[in-house]
């Protein structure tokens, strides 16, 4: 039995009077890739934001057995949760290098520069552009930067919010290849929100489908892939 990185029970979230999540239950086992599928407005982004206490929530969120539903965002980051928000979430007016450095904001150790070099090695495009402003990068480069920035805090759980959004198919494939590699080589746990269900289910171990703020369906990725309802709604079959 694998340990649970994340265990969420009865998660509600609201923006003002609008209730976006209406009681979600889901689990992310340690070392797994879990994907959340859903249409626009189903509450996928809100789910990830709720995990980092970026919106008003109720319910319990347990990370490795500790309740983090009331913790401050900064403390959740310190626990090892890195969040790549939708639309990249880079700092356009900061250089590529500064974007990576701010990713290590919560770290106190001396290995930050070594980590910068490490990610530059893995993403050589970023090293070529280390002194350019992030806002001047292409969409794919910005997504790489956002991911590398998130990894700078040495996370144990990576939250990815529609990383494929607005990217060319070849770049998406390359990106997912890297995610897959990261998961296999470092055992990094990932919770991925996607509309590109095909690629996401290929990589994932387990999947949830949310509709109108509730879990409509869940199961192992293979099983979801072959589910007629999922095929019709998300795989274009």
């Amino acid at each position, binding site marked *: 039995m694998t340990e649970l990185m994340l265990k969420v029970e009865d998660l509600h979230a609201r923006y003002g009077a609008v209730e976006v999540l209406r009681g979600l239950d889901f689990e992310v086992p340690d070392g797994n890739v879990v994907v959340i599928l859903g249409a626009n407005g189903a509450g996928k982004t809100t789910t990830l934001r709720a995990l*980092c206490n*970026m919106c008003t929530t109720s319910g319990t969120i347990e990370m490795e057995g500790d309740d983090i539903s009331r913790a*401050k*965002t*900064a403390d959740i*980051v*310190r626990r090892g949760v890195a*969040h790549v*928000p939708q*639309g990249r*979430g*880079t*700092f*356009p*007016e*900061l250089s590529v290098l*500064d974007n990576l*450095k*701010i*990713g290590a*904001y*919560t770290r106190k150790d001396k290995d930050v520069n070594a980590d910068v070099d490490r990610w530059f090695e893995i993403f050589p495009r970023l090293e070529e552009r280390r002194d350019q402003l992030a806002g001047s990068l292409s969409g794919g480069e910005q997504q790489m930067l956002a991911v590398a*920035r*998130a990894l700078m*805090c040495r996370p144990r759980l990576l939250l990815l919010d529609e990383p494929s959004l607005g990217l060319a198919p070849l770049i998406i494939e390359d990106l997912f290849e890297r995610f897959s590699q990261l998961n296999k080589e470092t055992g990094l746990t990932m919770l991925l929100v996607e509309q590109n269900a095909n690629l996401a289910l290929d990589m994932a171990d387990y999947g949830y489908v949310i509709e109108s703020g509730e879990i409509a369906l869940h199961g192992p990725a293979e099983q979801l892939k072959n589910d007629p309802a999922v095929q019709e709604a998300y795989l274009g079959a």
Partner: protein
Amino acid sequence: MNWNFEILPDFIFNGLRDGAVYGTVALALVLIFKATTLINFATGELAMLGAFFVYVLNVEQGWWLWLSIAVAMAVSAVIGAAVERALVRPFDPDDHLPVVLITLGLFLIINAVAGDIWNYQVRRVNDPFGHFPSWVPNGSELKTSSDGTIACLKNADGDLVEVARGTADAEMCEMVGRTFFEVVGARLHYRTIGTWIGLALALIALAIILGKTKAGLAFRAVSSNAESARLVGVNTGRTLGFGWALASVFGTLGAALVAPALGGVNPNMMLTILIYALAAAALGGLDSLGGAVIGGLVVGLIKSVLVSWFGVVVLGQAYFSILQLAMAFLLILIVLLFRPAGLFGTRRIERV
């Protein structure tokens, strides 16, 4: 038309002196605008308060002038951060109107409180760059009359060289020396050079703080993308408080540098300066620190050379001198109409 070019350098020097002060105050405005995209109308009054701290410590308590300025800057930093914590942070940062109204209210409250404590009379202060080498402790000091309003200086030969305010009483005048160099026939006052140096040092300090420190990096990150900054663990509230503290420090520096040129401190000393600083910040692009400084110098030059020299001296129209403030408003209007991002501001590109 009377093209009196002989006195033009004087006007240029004055313009660049005033401009450096506007630039310093504009830095304070821009620091807060960068982080929150709102204009802090209390910037000038917080700076005025800082100048009064210098007055209290130096003139009333007899501390060394530079120590007084340093302490006043530190106290201003604490006040700026406290204002942010108590009056700004409780409000939704995306809803600008309440916060702008709060800064306007602060403006009125600080002005009234200062007026109540110190009344509206101009109180003479010591000039950090008045006469060489005044920055040495126990060095030369201005002689002032008992009510603190009249001051005058004598040069080494005992001649009266400058009357700072009011009529000079030769009995009161002692010592000191010249307060200026002669450059191309014009007076380049030590005070002017000192103001430039003050601004330059402030810029260097700011570049180091923002560019080399972790708090500075966090401040730039929050300015660039507040949501992502939170997601990497930055405490955005505390970082904005840090921005307010920095802004108050620069405001106080600007006010302390300009006070002697205004004849001293009084609660209304920053009113017009804030308008010019707003024009400077708008011209520079509101979110550009370098732009604020260049904007300040340009506004100072326009005011001094275009309005005072060209309008009053060349055209011989005395009423031009009352158009200086109107010029600042006109400049803000023109910038906002034709180039909202100013000369150096970021043109925001909305990505959907």
